[in-house]
């Protein structure tokens, strides 16, 4: 059974709220940069950055965490690596790491390890659209669009126009 948690309008509101809290936490956006986790963290990062960009354009990068996954040995098929694109120097910057949903926290762990191989940012903050709980690692987002209650086996699907042709958040009960 699939239930809609948020449609296009609600997604836009969640993103506006996220952008607002990120702005309040980082008064000076000069050194801020966004890094989206592939695939759907990237359009989300771009949209938040677009809302924060005033006179200065905020850089947005993308990382693919496939090569840093802790379950590579367990997945039966070798996952395709899509590649990371960070074309700015992350040293000394405030990085906002962005993903569509946080679940076990393992993706974020992999992303943090990978980012630190690119340099030494001043700090890294985490922004997610949906927090669905069930953490397996001590990792919590700094900015959350919305927290929802789920069962572990539930599926949370998030769609963005850029990747899927429409915006929306859906919860599927198994």
């Amino acid at each position, binding site marked *: 059974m699939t239930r809609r948690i948020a449609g296009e309008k609600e997604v836009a509101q969640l993103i506006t709220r996220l952008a607002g809290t990120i702005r309040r936490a980082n008064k000076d956006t000069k050194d801020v940069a966004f890094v989206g986790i592939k695939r759907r963290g990237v359009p989300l990062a771009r949209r938040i950055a677009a809302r924060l960009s005033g006179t200065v354009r905020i850089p947005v990068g993308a990382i693919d965490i496939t*090569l840093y996954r802790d379950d590579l040995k367990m997945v*039966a098929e070798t*996952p395709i690596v899509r590649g990371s694109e960070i074309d700015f120097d992350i040293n000394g910057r405030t990085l906002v790491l962005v993903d569509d949903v946080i679940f076990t926290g393992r993706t974020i762990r992999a992303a943090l390890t990978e980012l630190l191989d690119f340099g030494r940012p001043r700090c890294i903050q985490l922004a997610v659209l949906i927090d669905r709980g069930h953490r397996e690692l001590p990792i919590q987002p700094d900015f959350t669009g919305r927290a929802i209650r789920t069962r572990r086996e539930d599926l949370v699907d998030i769609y963005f126009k850029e990747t899927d042709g429409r915006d929306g958040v859906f919860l599927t009960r198994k």
Partner: protein
Amino acid sequence: MKPRFKHLLGIEGLDRSDILTILDQARTFREVLDRPIPVVPALRGKTVVNLFFEASTRTATSFQLAASRLSAQCVNFSRTASSVSKGETLLDTARNIEAMRAEGIIIRHSMPGAPHFLARHVRAFVVNAGDGAHEHPTQALLDAFTLRDKLGDLKGRRILIVGDIAHSRVARSNVFCFTRLGAKVAVCGPPTLIPRYCEELGCEVFCRIDRVLYEVDVVNMLRVQQERIGVWCLPTLREYRELYGLTAERLKKLAPDVVVTHPGPVNWGVEMDFDVAEFPQALIMSQVTNGVAVRMAVLYLLAGGEQTP
């Protein structure tokens, strides 16, 4: 994504989409090589063995670097310092290596088919790093990668392979690889060094370089393999240079957008004059760099996922 192949034994058994899978993955790894820390943890805890029965600096080092940039362990095994000199067979050597829990074996051997033989008898994945005059698949893949990087799609591009076609595993793998990517391939060399029925691989054959050299997009020079060529094939190296070498004179007549590749090591003054090294379109050093990325892609695709014995 699971590659359709468990081993990489040659280009002949691959189709266009297999080749593109490897080349697309290699693009990602090429980017990794430019990172401040060019190492990713993808193959942590895996072990591959370099089993080189023939001399090699570039290929062995390249595989070793590729493995270590993926955080895999790479053990080198050389013929002279091993029990092969005590008469151990290839199969026993490989089985012993496998018993030590290596996931992959990279083999170079003077006998064509040695990697295929191993692949039938061990559970580890096998990568052919050159078997006699048969195939050298990773060289073909890195050449294709380098050319695509420079020229884009190879469809319809005219590629000329010059040199000792008969003894060259690079020539064979490259003909397979380039034709499968849609390029028009021609080979050129002394008639004594052109194998019979060469056209059946889908390439044109020329015996005079000046007839074809100025009409192509890519010149892929091969090394004159003095260790493999008998005296009856080539009168002198000077004659070879005159008739088939990419001399300073021929280089001047090349169109400025023609690219030159060579698998190395180069015999300067034989197949190419040293002027080629200064030629801005010579991609020889990029080939070496890209070789690491391509080999990372091969190891990643073969060793990733669950297949530890």
